[in-house]
């Protein structure tokens, strides 16, 4: 049962730099099904972060459409986009991920509070999810009292707790050492698959691709290649090993 969770149709994003126009995202189209974990890779400046911002309804494309659960983001008001972000999108960021004055558990529960669902069941679920991520003894720690990997795992829990349609991860491994990075991405991939979410991870580290189902490669704003089969994906991940 794989339904289309996210659909991108001919998206173009143009920025004006010193009077000349540059297409940061240049006619990109793809679909992501629920239960699928996709990596968006490419060198810096390839437009992957811009693409992510458009998927998150933080940037409006110059032309083209983005549909989440069949809803067209470009037809929404700013207020509707705020609601969409808290209901249908889960987010992890590269740094400054967590609210520094909330504990691990409170950070996860905050997502439920935003959606008005911070009930008893929700609190139990966030505790279970954190336990699943190996943070059982860190529930009441503030972000500053946790390691980078632990913080990233709390962010993953926050991105999943409210059962969003799409989970977006911006360079989740940027501040982690290799071993931790593999652990985090593996857990992330497992949760995406178990919970039947559509996961999109932006990364410049091709080694992380070994846990994903598909890889979208961008260069100069264009989607240049899609690695579809397991063999292709694994080959790419191994290539990133040197």
């Amino acid at each position: 049962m794989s339904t289309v969770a996210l659909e991108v149709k001919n998206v173009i994003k143009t920025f004006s730099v010193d009077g000349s126009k540059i297409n940061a995202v240049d006619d990109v189209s793809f679909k992501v099904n629920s239960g699928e974990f996709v990596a968006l890779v490419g060198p810096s400046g390839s437009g992957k972060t811009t693409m992510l911002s458009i998927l998150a309804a933080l940037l409006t494309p110059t032309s083209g459409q983005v549909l989440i659960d069949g809803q067209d983001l470009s037809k929404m008001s700013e207020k509707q986009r705020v609601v969409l972000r808290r209901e249908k999108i889960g987010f992890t960021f590269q740094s400054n991920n967590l609210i520094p004055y909330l504990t691990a558990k409170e950070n996860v529960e905050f997502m439920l509070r935003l959606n008005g669902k911070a009930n008893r069941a929700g609190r139990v679920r966030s505790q279970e999810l954190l336990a699943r991520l190996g943070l059982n003894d860190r529930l009441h720690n503030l972000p500053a009292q946790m390691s980078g990997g632990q913080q990233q795992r709390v962010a993953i829990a926050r991105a999943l707790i409210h059962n969003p349609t799409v989970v977006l991860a911006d360079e989740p491994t940027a501040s982690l050492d290799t071993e931790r990075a593999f652990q985090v991405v593996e857990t992330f991939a497992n949760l995406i698959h178990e919970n039947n979410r559509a996961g999109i991870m932006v990364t410049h580290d091709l080694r992380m691709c070994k846990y994903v189902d598909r890889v979208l490669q961008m260069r100069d704003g264009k989607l240049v290649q899609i690695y579809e089969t397991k063999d292709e994906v694994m080959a790419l991940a191994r290539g990133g090993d040197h």
Partner: protein
Amino acid sequence: MGLSIYLALKEIWRNRGRFFLVALVIALITLLVLFIAALGEGLGTNNRQYVSNLDAQLIVFLDKSDFIIPSSRLDQSALKAVRRVDGVADAGPISTSSTAIMLDNGKVLKVSMLGVEAGRPGLPPVIEGRTYQTQLAKETVIDRNVALRSDIKVGDEITVRSTQGTKDEFFTLKVVGLTEGQAYTFQPTIFVPPSTWERVRPKSEAEANKTVPDINVIAVKLEDPSQAEAMKSKIEANVSNVQVTDIETTISNIPGYSAQQGTVQTQGAFTLLIGVLVIGGFFQIQILQKVPQIGVLKAIGSSNGVVGFAAVVQIMVVTAIGVGIGGLLTYVFSLFFPPTIPLVFNGNASALAIAALLFIGPAGGLVSVIYAVRIEPLKALRLS
């Protein structure tokens, strides 16, 4: 809005040390503002108390005296003419002077000696003993403040020292009654009958043999206080060479009164301004440090309203705590102040100062709240 309050309170609690220090700064500003307000009130009260407590609506001055009590001189015929004006219920003469009481321990207590007629506007209600009986009686009604400072009781005799011509003259008066809260030009007051006043008051050689007392101003009680405006013109039309005004104008023209209140109020206003700048600066720096974090809050779906209101709640809570601590400190300090320092923590002035203090928090933090609302959620992705 519960979410905003949740965020605001969590942040304050988890950074309580830092927020407490800011609250302490606000507390010190509160302390200063409240003391300045109390000082203004205390100075003002000591200056105007007698006039503001008068049982009268209008005060009659000599024309072109600019409503300054000591420069106004009226005679008995003016008093009679005022009493004849239709609508005037009663009118009493007030003659002012400054003199001294010789105390048993050899000290001198400076007092305002006011010449007023018994039973007329000008003589406040007697709270103990009785009022003096004739216009010539060597009797006096004294302010309780005089009694407290000098240990004088009803029935005692006091010695008043006045310089008349080039000689110091001493007069003995019997204290027959007490009145309350009657300070005038920073001195507690003793009241004497008009003719006694003329005999006892300090005067120049030329005035030495005068017996008919000069009147400074006339306090007028109206039959219908709501007609004060109309009665002003009516008295001015019927009595020659006078100008009439209300109690408020009389107070603001007490020599030095307006200048002094203006000085104190300016000090208070500047202290509040400093408060606005301190609070504004702190919260602005704090918001600048929080830009990425606010970006994340917005990116995961917090509305501008939640973020902005959280900032407002935070500012109000910190301000309220600061003002609370400051109020408490002020109260504790006020217990240790000697009664001779003119501090009056009267309800109105203090309440006004506290309201102003509670307002300066949001006023100072306004810029930072606007800044917080304007932060782009793209900051979370290090874009824009």
